[in-house]
């Protein structure tokens, strides 16, 4: 079994709602984190990202100036001087399939729908720390591998070309959701 030494991790929390920031700060400090930086909009978050070089970013979607999606896209610039690889956990009230897909395609590492829970947050952090995915760079995407399993029988339209296991066969997220109801 593994534990995380939270006191060695540096977090950047970005949410325009002060109550949610307080809750996140409380949870992270309870996990053991000491360094938790907070921003209330995307622009401030990007500035703090460059300045403090956090290990993990936790961001809301809807925010002033620019939103969490744009923040993720700005962090995921492969040629940037900063760190384009930091795990990004999107914590949002949006929970629709379309939103999850858009967030994934912006380079978000993990998606956590509100209402927030200590368990859900801990699991996302554990996942990004213990199971980092390789990064993929295409003409239109730079971010963590969007594949979540390794089914080599996938024959879908977006299969990559040139790998031994080129594409993954997996049911759509919508089908998965329907079958679990």
């Amino acid at each position, binding site marked *: *079994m*593994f*534990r*995380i*030494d*939270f006191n*060695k*991790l540096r977090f950047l929390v970005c949410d325009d*709602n002060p*109550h*949610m920031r307080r*809750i996140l700060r409380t*949870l992270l*400090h*309870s*996990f*053991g984190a000491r360094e938790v930086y907070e921003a209330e909009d995307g622009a401030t978050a990007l500035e703090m990202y460059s300045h403090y070089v956090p*290990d993990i970013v936790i961001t809301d979607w*809807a925010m002033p100036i620019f939103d969490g999606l744009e923040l993720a896209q700005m962090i995921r610039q492969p040629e940037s001087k900063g*760190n384009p*690889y*930091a*795990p990004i956990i999107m914590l*949002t*009230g*949006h*929970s*629709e*399939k*379309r*939103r*999850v897909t858009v967030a994934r395609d912006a380079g978000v590492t993990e*998606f*956590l*729908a*509100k*209402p*927030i*829970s*200590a*368990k*859900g*947050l*801990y*699991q996302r952090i554990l996942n990004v*720390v*213990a199971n*980092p995915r*390789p*990064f993929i*760079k*295409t*003409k239109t995407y730079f971010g963590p591998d969007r594949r979540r399993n390794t089914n080599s029988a996938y024959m879908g339209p977006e299969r*990559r*070309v*040139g*790998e031994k296991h080129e594409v993954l066969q997996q049911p759509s997220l*919508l089908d998965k*959701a329907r079958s679990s*109801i």
Partner: protein
Amino acid sequence: MAKNSAKDIEVKAFATHQVITQPNPLRKVLRRVEEKDLDDPVGRAEQALASLSGEFKDWMAIEVQRLSAAWTAVQKDGFTKKTRDELFHAAHDIKGDAATFGFASAAGIAESLCRVIEHAPDLDKVPAELFTHHINAILAIVHENTRLDRISVSAELSRRLRKVADDYLAHVNRDRPEHLEMILSPNIAPGE
């Protein structure tokens, strides 16, 4: 800590993409412990969250005040980008926060309100009652939630408002299949 030096980063090039791997930059914060390890960070965090709960009702009151003000602005100026966005964000914050604050039914109603704002083809044509019923229900739930016998009423109110809103959205989007699919699709984002 989160970034390796360039020499540690391995890039494999394929026909349409590159696969970039690097040693886990966060591996140093992982610590193997015995199965019987008694430390419970999640339990500790839940306790800390519970200790905040005394403030939740006040926080919720602030959120509904914001929603109420956003609706007042709509009534005064009509649906402009600014008033629409503020109403949506106020409802969206309640959707995300209310369950944490102990007002799960209010979260459900706020979600229903968000769906109306997001998927109605013309907000000016939405019956005003559909908005006021949602907003008044949220206000009532927050103000009356201290009585346990109100909770089942709140849940029923939330369920019925969602049904009315969904029926309305299905009707007005009957010729907009992309919206119809989104309206009818279940939520899939993991919360746990």
